[in-house]
């Protein structure tokens, strides 16, 4: 009985299940795919997935605040385009970075204004800006071929090596840590949770929910802009349609990591584990020589199973913590935060 309750306690810690699934998958692939555990190959595919890790951070803020941002993928692509364009015109690398980040911020601001001030549904607004950003990139690439800057400084933004990892990966790590701290420790982060749990109670307790959402969309846009800069610097060429569909991978990753689309529940590191799960799955299947046409099916099934398991565990954790109130103050605390 005592053992059972200990097991329950461990399962109830949020994120443990997806982490366990991730570890199991890594073990499975390292046994079945020869080159899976080679450091270079790991570094390579993690490096490729950095833009997704960066947009998922902003997306997590938006989803926890009870919103959704579908525009991040194509905003990332457009920011990659604008920053590379500026760099190709001969501007120094820091101007290109600023232009890329501000492209993202501009779209974040636009989303935020229409959603929070004009009160239009977030799904529709960000769907519209998805089109607008993707279209803007098409218009740019129709006029100018974005096939590479000569500025080595711009290229080095993403491809410097430090302690065996590329600067892209370091940027992603720093962003994850900083924004996780903001989300979990700062007053703004608490307001994000409160807004997502329920706008009315949050309003009653004196939180400006619209301003909180405004901030979340700005963060999402700004990070998409920065992700675009990194991608442009890494690829050093931008075509129309770049990063289209990233938003779906990011949303799927976040949901797999237990970020609730209903708002008010989740954390950055869990969303990252979810995204890592999806990218590792693709990489492993690729190395096993599975027909790439199956990937979409496997990813779809994974999302379904992941969400069902996550919901089951969450319900289990709730009943457990209400039944044995005295044993686990930790879960009760977590419940207070994430309910």
């Amino acid at each position, binding site marked *: 009985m005592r053992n059972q309750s200990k097991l329950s306690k461990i399962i109830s810690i949020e994120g443990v299940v997806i982490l366990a699934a991730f570890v199991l998958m890594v073990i499975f692939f390292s046994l079945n795919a020869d080159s899976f555990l080679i450091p270079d190959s790991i570094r390579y595919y993690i490096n490729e997935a950095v833009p997704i890790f960066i947009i998922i951070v902003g997306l997590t803020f938006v989803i926890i605040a009870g919103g959704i941002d579908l525009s991040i993928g194509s905003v990332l692509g457009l920011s990659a385009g604008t920053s590379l364009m500026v760099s190709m015109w001969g501007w120094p690398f820091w101007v290109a970075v600023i232009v890329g980040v501000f492209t993202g911020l501009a779209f974040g601001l636009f989303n935020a204004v229409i959603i929070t001030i004009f009160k239009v549904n977030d799904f529709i607004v960000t769907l519209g800006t998805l089109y607008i950003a993707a279209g803007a990139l098409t218009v740019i690439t129709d006029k100018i071929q974005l096939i590479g800057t000569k500025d080595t400084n711009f290229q080095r933004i993403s491809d410097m090596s430090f302690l065996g990892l590329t600067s892209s990966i370091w940027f992603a790590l720093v962003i994850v840590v900083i924004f996780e701290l903001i989300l979990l420790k700062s007053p703004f982060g608490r307001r994000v949770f409160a807004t997502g749990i329920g706008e009315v109670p949050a309003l009653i307790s004196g939180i400006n929910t619209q301003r909180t959402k405004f901030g979340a969309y700005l963060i999402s846009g700004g990070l998409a802009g920065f992700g675009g800069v990194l991608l442009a610097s890494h690829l050093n060429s931008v075509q129309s349609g770049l990063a289209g569909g990233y938003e779906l991978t990011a949303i*799927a990753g976040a949901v797999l990591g237990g970020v609730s*689309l209903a708002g008010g529940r989740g954390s950055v590191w869990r969303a990252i584990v979810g995204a890592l799960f999806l990218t590792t799955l693709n990489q492993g299947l690729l190395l096993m020589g599975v*027909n790439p046409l199956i990937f979409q099916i496997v990813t779809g099934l994974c999302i379904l199973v992941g969400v069902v398991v996550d919901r089951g565990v969450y319900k289990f954790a709730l009943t457990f913590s209400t039944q044995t109130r005295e044993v686990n103050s930790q879960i009760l605390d977590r419940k207070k935060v994430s309910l």
Partner: protein
Amino acid sequence: MKLNIAASNSSKSLRNRILQDPSFGIVALLAVAILAMTVLEPSFATGGNVTNIINAMMTVSFLAIGMTVVLIAGGLDLSVGSTMAVTAGVAGNFLSYGMPMGVAFLWALAIGMGIGLINGLIITKLGIPDFIATLATLGIGQGVILLWTQGVPILGYMNDAYYYIGGLKKIAGPISIPMIVVVVISVGMAIILKRTKFGLELYAVGSSPISARNAGVNVDAIKISAYAISGLLAAIAGIHIAGRTTTVPPLIGKGYEISAIAAAVIGGASLLGGKGRVIGALLGALTLTLTRNIINLIGIESSWQAIVTGSVLIGAVLANRASSEFGRKTFRRGKS
């Protein structure tokens, strides 16, 4: 004095009814666009161009009607595009093996409806959010047709009858079979939504699932039926598009879910559920198609198309919003 008030009220009420109509904003926008185009662009109001527009809006119309039903019930179906692709593939492939047309179409319809049922069951019985469940079935459907065709378009299934069904050959003047089917489905669906118990329950479930359940409505069954209807209409769109394009590339349905959602929402359906009309879905489909047509006619480079579409989507929703606020304000003033 009393009579006076009554009279002013009744005249107000007609004005209010027009102003408060959920589609007033978008109709006004369309009217302005059509008027401007008729004056400025001589090739716009020609018979040929009008039939072009109507033919081009058929596929999205089917999907948008299905999407509207799902949105009314408080759901969201991202899988319609890939369901359309799968059923188009089924129709084309079965026909190319010499199956009788009716049987092949029945298979396509059954598979479309089956995908819808699966969506509904996953969402209601497993409790997965609509967005995620249908996103997963979108991926699975697209993966299935890619794997099945190995990326090669399906072709060689066209026969004389299919040219009529696809609308490539007209039955009388500019009238084609798809047009008749759209009209029949629209009228039938509008009657179901407005005049039947099922329609009432759909709106009830979308407005407030808890109150609907308390009132004795089987919420799960209603939601599942909504998704089944959406799947069925996606299959009809699939059969139609296979005939219209005469080949089925595996990614034929890509992006259609977005057009369908956009059309339904432009037509006044709400992602919060409980709102939406068939006529709205058709107006939305018309708006999207007209936008594309106008872009082509006035010679804007086609690379601008996505920007204009996105702006029209946001603009139309803002216009609907503004008109309903305006209507509510005048209504209040009329009352006081």
